């Protein structure tokens, strides 16, 4: 195949040369074919003299995001996950002769909205193309996509990495979005190895996708993972894609190569079959290491598609894509250009405005994006940036946090730890979402209020929270009363406990009297042990200081 490709390439090249001398006007068509081979040559093998120690990874992503809509991109059949096989298929989806595509306005609006959120230029006019390949889950033999002129181009995705010691430093990065194109999803193939056959379910065939193409600007798996997570949050905030990777609503392919900085990009491989963000980072880092290994041993990186095997943590070559594909792109003859309009004033006369896609209207309806939300949280509540990430990362946690704040006078900076450590810790342990939490925001607020006003100590508050978790619906006050967890601030009682501790630890008392004031903390701990953490710490300290002075 490779040999025949080269031969065909040479043939076209010589034809091209000849025709461009004879017929300069015609070169356009042939140039289109040549770009493939040109791109191939522009990816060079890092030269033999290049030092493998200096090689770095280069990562570009292609993300397929399933548009959250009721119906498919070009047909009125329903979009639903895990429906009975072939129950969501229209005649068009099955590619029966005589059927024609009818574009879903919701899908166009979703793509425009996503483009605006990613600072893209929205093309007023975009075109549809056919991309041909043969596979049983693509009944038409081609996919309708937007190759020449996609709906949105030239965007920016801003994402953040956590770096530095304790990973508390937030580093801002950007990735260029080359384009966002509308296209059809394919059906699903279930391979039955026992009977040597493939079962085809066309429920997914024709579902609307947004393909987001990012420039190769990232350098490692962690960056790619952070970018994809941010994109996922943006799409979820917009409601244009549900972004669940395990259900295939978001699929990420990574183009990975290595080179010496400043040199041309190396030969790339495409890593597919990545179904979680964690695996994305692992797959990319494995692939970068593998390519560097190959070059260090004096080998060459093959331009190939590789699949990630999550069990072994390795990428393995995929068999089905031999040589370079030629998709034979052609304009989709059944769809005139797609027009979107800037505002109502730019609509052509005599057209029903409700039928058209108006960019201005969509821009006005954009919700608060995750980055804006984080900045707002940091500014309004004085919390640390890394806490704002934790809040926004968890669906519903921002709302929960704000509801707690409304019901307590406790400072936001003191509340944040309770929400991001205690509450989230409990939720994660049981693999629950915020909305499933047995402790409601007002209930947690009540508990924190009791601590703030000095009724209970901080360690007791944690115990009460655990009790509240175990018996949903019980209030903090009920638990404190039932289990007698209230702070002991009865002076005579504390005096006698402190006296016992002082009497039984003469060495420590002597140390304090000799000036080692830190030992007082040990005595305080012993008092708290006696009172099960309920003693008023301020009072205990005062009593102990008096008795050891």
């Amino acid at each position, binding site marked *: *195949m490779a040999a*025949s*490709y080269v*031969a*065909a390439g040479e*043939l076209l090249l010589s034809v091209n040369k*000849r*025709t461009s001398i*004879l017929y300069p*006007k015609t070169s356009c068509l042939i140039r289109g074919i040549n770009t493939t081979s040109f791109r191939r040559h522009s990816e060079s093998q890092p030269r033999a003299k290049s030092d493998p120690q200096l090689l770095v990874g280069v990562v570009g992503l292609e993300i397929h995001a399933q548009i959250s*809509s*009721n*119906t498919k991109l070009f047909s*009125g*059949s*329903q979009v639903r996950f895990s429906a009975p*096989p*072939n*129950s*969501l*298929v*229209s*005649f*068009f*989806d*099955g590619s*029966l002769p005589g059927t024609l595509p*009818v*574009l*879903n*306005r*919701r899908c166009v609006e979703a793509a425009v909205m996503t483009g605006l959120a990613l600072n893209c230029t929205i093309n007023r006019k975009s075109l549809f193309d056919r991309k041909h390949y*043969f*596979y*049983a889950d693509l009944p038409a033999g081609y996919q309708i996509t937007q190759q020449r002129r996609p709906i949105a181009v030239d965007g920016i995705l801003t994402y953040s990495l956590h770096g530095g010691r304790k990973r508390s430093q937030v580093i801002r990065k950007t990735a260029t979005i080359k384009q966002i194109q509308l296209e059809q999803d394919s059906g699903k*193939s*279930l*391979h039955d*190895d026992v009977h*040597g*056959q*493939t*079962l*085809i*379910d*066309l429920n997914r065939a024709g579902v609307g996708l947004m393909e987001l193409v990012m420039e190769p600007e990232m350098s490692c798996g962690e960056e790619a993972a952070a970018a994809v997570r941010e994109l996922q949050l943006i799409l979820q905030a917009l409601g244009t894609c549900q972004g669940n990777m395990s259900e295939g609503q978001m699929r990420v392919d990574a183009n990975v190569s290595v080179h010496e900085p400043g040199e041309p990009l190396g030969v790339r491989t495409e890593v597919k079959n990545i179904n979680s963000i964690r695996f994305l980072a692992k797959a990319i880092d494995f692939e970068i290491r593998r390519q560097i290994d190959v070059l260090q041993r004096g080998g060459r990186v093959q331009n190939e598609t590789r699949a990630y095997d999550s069990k072994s943590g390795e990428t393995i070559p995929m068999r*089905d894509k031999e040589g370079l594909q*030629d998709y*034979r792109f052609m*304009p989709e*003859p059944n*769809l*005139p*250009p*797609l*027009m979107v309009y800037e505002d109502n004033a730019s609509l*052509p006369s005599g057209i029903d405005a409700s*039928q*058209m*896609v108006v960019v201005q209207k969509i821009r006005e309806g954009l919700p608060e994006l995750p980055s804006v939300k984080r900045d707002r949280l940091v500014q309004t509540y004085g919390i640390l940036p890394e806490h704002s990430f934790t809040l926004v990362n968890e669906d519903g946690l921002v709302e929960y946090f704000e509801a707690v704040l409304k019901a307590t006078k406790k400072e936001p900076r003191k509340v944040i730890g309770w929400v991001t450590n205690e509450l989230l810790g409990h939720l994660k342990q049981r693999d629950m979402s915020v909305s499933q939490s047995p402790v409601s925001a007002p209930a947690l607020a009540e508990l924190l209020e009791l601590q703030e006003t000095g009724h209970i100590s901080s360690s007791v508050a944690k115990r009460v929270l655990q009790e509240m978790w175990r018996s949903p619906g019980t209030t903090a006050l009920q638990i404190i009363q039932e289990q007698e967890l209230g702070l002991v601030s009865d002076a005579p009682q504390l005096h006698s406990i402190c006296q016992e501790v002082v009497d039984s630890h003469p060495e420590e008392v002597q140390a304090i009297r000799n000036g080692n004031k830190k030992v007082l903390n040990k005595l305080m701990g012993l008092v708290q042990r006696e009172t099960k953490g309920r003693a008023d710490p301020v009072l205990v300290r005062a009593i102990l200081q008096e008795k050891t002075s």
Partner: protein
Amino acid sequence: MSVFSLAATRTCRGLSLRNIRPPLKLTSPTETTKYRHLNLQSHISTVTRLCSSAPHNPKVSEFATWEPVPEDQLPPPTRIPADLVDKLERLALVDFRTKEGLACLEKAIRFADQLHVVDTSGIEPMDSVLEDRALYLRNDTVMEGDCAEELLQLSKNTVEEYFVAPPGNIPLPTREERAELLKHSEF
């Protein structure tokens, strides 16, 4: 072909007899293509006039005009090497199989070569004659589907509610295998 020109003749009757070419004796596949093109052209121009009540636009010729492009104005004829045949067969899932098939392909390319003579400088190519129309956008309401039984009936092979296909794509035979297969063909 004959049905088509008959239809065209019918449409034209009584309108402009000058648009109709005399029936031709067709010999080669290339000529067939050429004349089909001619008849198509006259057919379309007639229909347009039939539908339009406006007076004749002087910019548009009243007659279909056609002159074969002389050979010396065309680029050198393209010959298809075996490697390219391999690639085309692979891409289009077609089988040229015979020498005639290949000759037909080369003739088709030769026919298209005439387009090189047309001066298209400064003209943006069109995708469709409907380019100036607004693309209709549909509401996002479920209207179709739920016809698995009807669709599955069309398939030769099904399991439960699935269509059944061979595992993966059937690999094309290598050139050696094909040579063996086509030993007795002229190719």
